[in-house]
């Protein structure tokens, strides 16, 4: 009797065959197939985005992303548009630039339209471009992993104070959200980013001759406020104060003859005046007119906090020197008719625009930003004073020989530069160009005498000086990268000499 060979060995054959096939499939999946998929978590649901590896970077299927995040997608021959609650992104095949309103965002890899139907984008699209149009936060959790978070709330309380010539609206936030103020023909829109606004409107009604109405607008992505202009509305001034985060908007009626006469300055406090810090209580501010200290000098100790500035060694930090020198200048100014306000009095990082806003708020006689220099080599030394450069327009560029700071067009800016009119933030310094150069030349002269150098004033486009509405300079009072300069700057006596030189220059300029 023969053994039943077929069933047992057939089973063995089948198992071997299946095992080999499974092995082949597994091998294929793990080695042949392209990149590991990107994952997006929405709540507890994990969704995968088809991804392909290309030159070491991961390209993700745009349609998958659009579907997961519930966005809208449109395409034409070479362009794709992704629409979200806050706007649209335009992508072009084979180009790394993504357009959002008037802004271009550069991706690591060009957009790839595969087989004329699939769109692939590099992973940095999710970090750089997509958050601009989402109404939620998209946070990177790890490699190829993202999570969508709902927005947190930002409770915004509005306070109204009525003054004879203006209405003050104070927006007090519970979060430190970016604020945008946009003036339209009949209204002013105040919008907040990153958090969902929960409004608390005031019980006090604003003077309706200046502010016809104030309401919350939920149609803005995160919510915002609309200030309707009254028949007597003339212009506005706005500024921020930190901790707690407040944005103040003063809306003015047209000035009358009595109001154009100089107002008495009131008692001038002794010593440096700290930056404006509104009280955290909820009681309305006392009635007063905008401060018009006539003899205020704005001093800006450069850098601070995590921003060390130039630091060739761990014990040579520019931020410490700038504060020390500024304090000495303020001290010396006590014996003059002038008083100093400082943009910082502690080791803290104050934003660039905040520094300019403080100087503008006090209507300073001049603004001096104190820094120390750094250069690629040790040779550069001595003091250098910088003033804001306004470059040529495209028409005059070739004649001027200037290399930097050109503006697309200044046509029409001139008629905006009336102190009674609104001035675009970045053009505020333009009316003070010649005065700033005078101030700069005097300071350079005084500091050159201290250092025995012959450096000249330099014109450079500086983000910090552009918004300052006063004669403004940035002083690099020596190079920390130069051994001779840094040795001198380390001594209190030398810092004092620099401070006295600055005070002398201020007096020469203002007298």
């Amino acid at each position, binding site marked *: 009797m023969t053994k039943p060979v077929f069933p047992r060995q057939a089973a063995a054959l089948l198992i071997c065959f299946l095992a080999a096939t499974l092995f082949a499939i597994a091998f294929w999946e793990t080695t042949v197939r392209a990149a590991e998929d990107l994952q997006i978590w929405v709540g507890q649901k994990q969704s995968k985005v088809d991804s392909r590896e290309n030159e070491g970077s991961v390209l993700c299927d745009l349609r998958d992303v659009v579907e997961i995040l519930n966005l809208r997608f449109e395409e034409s021959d070479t362009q794709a548009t992704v629409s979200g609650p806050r706007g649209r992104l335009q992508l072009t095949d084979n180009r790394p630039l993504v357009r959002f309103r008037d802004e271009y965002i*550069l991706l690591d890899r060009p957009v790839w339209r595969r087989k004329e139907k699939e769109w692939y984008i590099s992973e940095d699209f999710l970090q750089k471009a997509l958050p601009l149009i989402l109404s939620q936060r998209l946070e990177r959790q790890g490699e190829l992993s993202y999570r969508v978070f709902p927005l947190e709330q930002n409770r915004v309380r509005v306070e109204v104070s009525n003054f004879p010539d203006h209405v003050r609206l104070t927006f007090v936030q519970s979060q430190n959200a970016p604020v945008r103020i946009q003036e339209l023909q009949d209204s002013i829109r105040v919008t907040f980013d990153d958090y969902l606004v929960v409004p608390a409107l005031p019980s006090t009604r604003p003077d309706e001759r200046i502010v016809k109405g104030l309401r919350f607008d939920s149609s803005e992505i995160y919510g915002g406020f609309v200030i309707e202009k009254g028949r007597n509305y003339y212009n506005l001034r706005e500024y921020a104060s930190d901790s707690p985060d407040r944005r103040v908007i003063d809306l003015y009626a047209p000035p009358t003859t009595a109001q154009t006469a100089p107002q008495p300055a009131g008692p001038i406090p002794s010593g440096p005046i700290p930056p404006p810090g509104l009280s955290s209580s909820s009681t309305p501010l006392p009635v007063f007119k905008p401060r018009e200290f006539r003899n205020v000098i704005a001093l800006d100790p450069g850098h601070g906090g995590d921003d060390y500035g130039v630091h060739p060694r761990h014990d040579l930090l520019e931020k410490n020197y700038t504060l020390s020198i500024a304090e000495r200048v303020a001290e010396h100014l006590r014996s003059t008719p002038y008083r100093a306000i400082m943009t910082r009095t502690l080791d803290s990082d104050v934003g660039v625009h905040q520094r300019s806003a403080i100087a503008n708020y006090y209507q300073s006689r001049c603004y001096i930003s104190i820094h120390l220099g*750094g*250069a690629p080599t040790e040779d550069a030394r001595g003091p250098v004073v910088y003033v804001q450069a306004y470059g040529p327009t495209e028409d005059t560029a070739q004649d001027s020989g200037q290399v930097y700071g050109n503006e697309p067009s200044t046509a029409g800016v001139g008629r905006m530069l009336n102190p009674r009119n609104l001035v675009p933030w970045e053009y505020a310094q333009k009316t003070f160009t010649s005065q700033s150069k005078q101030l700069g030349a005097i300071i350079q002269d005084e500091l050159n005498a201290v250092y025995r150098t012959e450096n000249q004033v*330099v014109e450079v486009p500086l983000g910090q000086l*552009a918004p300052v509405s006063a004669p403004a300079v940035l002083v690099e009072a020596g190079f920390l990268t130069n051994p001779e300069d840094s040795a001198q700057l380390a001594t209190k006596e030398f810092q004092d000499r620099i401070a006295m030189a600055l005070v002398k220059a201020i007096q020469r300029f203002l007298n």
Partner: protein
Amino acid sequence: MRKHPSLIIALTLVIVTVGIGYYLYTTEKRRQAELRESERQSLDPEASALAEGSNPSVPVKLYLYNRGRVDPKDGFLIAEERQIYETENKVLQARQIVNEVLKTRPLFGEEAELRQIYLLEDGTAVVDVSEQTASQLAGGITSEMAAILSITRSLQANIPEISKVRFLIGGRQAETFAGHVSIMQPFM
């Protein structure tokens, strides 16, 4: 030794399966490599031309920081000749020029990197450098101006089509290059 035909058949089947699998694997790998190559050439023609390395080299004039200078108008930059690969492609020329400038020590740090460069029709070169390029400068306005002007001048001097240079940091528009000099407008 007894012959076991079933075992031989089984082994043959396994070998054939593995063989087919390996053939498919190599075919797919080859196809993907070809696809990658064609994608790379269509997406990045510059890299493929550079990778060939067979182009002759041509001299270019770079404008680099002149030691000890602080005033951009007073001999701030000094011309220096370097070699780049010859190519008709303007973006490739620009990329090589900027990469050469970024090799300048000690002006730029070790991690200074050109991420992307893009030429617009109006003569603007959009130069996107890594964040380390800006953060590893020595600090101060002199260092920033040296970085900005050496790139701008070097591009303008060698590529007539480039009339102005706009800078991006890490792919985004920034207010300043490294905390001082405004780069909101292009440099020309």
